[in-house]
């Protein structure tokens, strides 16, 4: 059994970047990282970090199924999201993913950061924002949307590291 297993499924590449970085932070040599697009075998571990890309407030169905199947070990989630995030939207997204873990005691927390948007989504957001927002709001929104195209960035990685450290210090 591994101390840590980092499992990820990344269609945009964003969550994959986080997964590799996260793996390097884990304080053990007895750890494994699995790209679920390449390998569907789930190793046994004491602590799972499960990563994915969020799209339309959900993620790949394989991830949702996996969350309900891990019966032992702690589970922390990490994800990237193509839309600008607020504290409330982070909370709501977290609430939509941690509910797939059957046993609440297994849940250790979730890290979410903005990820680079696919081109078609970027255009769609931009178009909708232009139809809906005032000039001042539009400027603020587009600025954050633009900024998001460089994510995950160094700040996200630093926050991810802090998240991992905090999660591993929690009294479970």
């Amino acid at each position, binding site marked *: 059994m591994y101390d840590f297993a980092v499992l990820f499924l990344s269609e945009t590449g964003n969550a994959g970047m986080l997964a590799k970085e996260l793996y390097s932070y884990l304080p053990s040599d007895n750890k494994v990282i699995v790209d679920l697009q390449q390998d569907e075998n789930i190793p046994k571990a004491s602590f799972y970090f499960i990563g994915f890309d969020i*799209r339309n*407030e*959900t993620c790949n169905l394989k991830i949702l199924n996996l969350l309900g199947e891990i019966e032992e070990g702690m589970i922390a989630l990490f994800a990237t999201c193509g839309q*600008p995030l607020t504290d409330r939207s982070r*909370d709501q997204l977290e609430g939509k993913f941690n509910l797939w873990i059957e046993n609440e005691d297994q849940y250790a927390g*979730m890290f979410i950061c903005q990820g680079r948007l696919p081109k078609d989504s970027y255009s769609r957001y931009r178009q909708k924002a232009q139809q809906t*927002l005032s000039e001042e709001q539009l400027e603020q*929104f587009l600025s954050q949307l633009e900024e998001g195209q460089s994510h995950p960035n160094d700040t996200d990685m630093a926050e991810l590291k802090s998240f991992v450290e905090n999660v591993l*210090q*929690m009294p479970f």
Partner: protein
Amino acid sequence: MAVQDPHKILGVSENATQDEIKRAYRRKAKEYHPDLHPNDPTINKKMSEVNEAYDMLMNPEKYAKRTQQQNSYGQQQRQSSGNTYQGTGGWSGGWTGDFGGFDFEDFFGSFYGDSSPTGPQARADDCVEFQQVIMAISRHQYQQAVQILNTMISTRRNGRWYYLSAWSNHGLGNSILALEQIRKAVQLDPDNAEYRRTMQQFQRAGQTYQQNGQDFHMDFGGAERLCLSLCAAQFFCGSMRFCIPF
């Protein structure tokens, strides 16, 4: 798009518990998952409806406020244009729906008069316990946050401690105690803008509860009486100080 009957969309009764709502959401979210319907152009809309229905049932206060704003907007529309208000269409034509679940109201919450407190953020100089408390609060594990705070000896209970304790009790629904503690945090650290802002938010939230008549029929005289009761309860309960259910 605006969901009219979230219970119907999730297929639960109006008396459904949170667990039943979660189970129903999982069932529907799998049924309408885009991976299972790659060629169905309507599936994103269905999925968004399920998401919104779930949000409405799990965060009713957000939608109650939205309805109030919507009604207010409708009145303004009637006054300014003289036209008949056309229900939800006058509001935005779809806050979420076909927009990948993104909610402009969340993004511009403060612009739209949202005064809901959002929660404490970690600081570089936070001790390990405070970091753990902030993590617990962000996961809505308020009881755990209180337990961690209670392990800290009294000499370590500074303004930051009272600030985090206020948030923990706010999460547990102990509104009066939360207000008392955030006031103590401001008293100990009067120059801290974050504490002052949070105190104002908690005070505004209290006023909203009073205005709405939602289980908060207490004036400050009542609050003082409750504090006296609390002190008595704390005297008898010792370490249960922050866990007293109201």
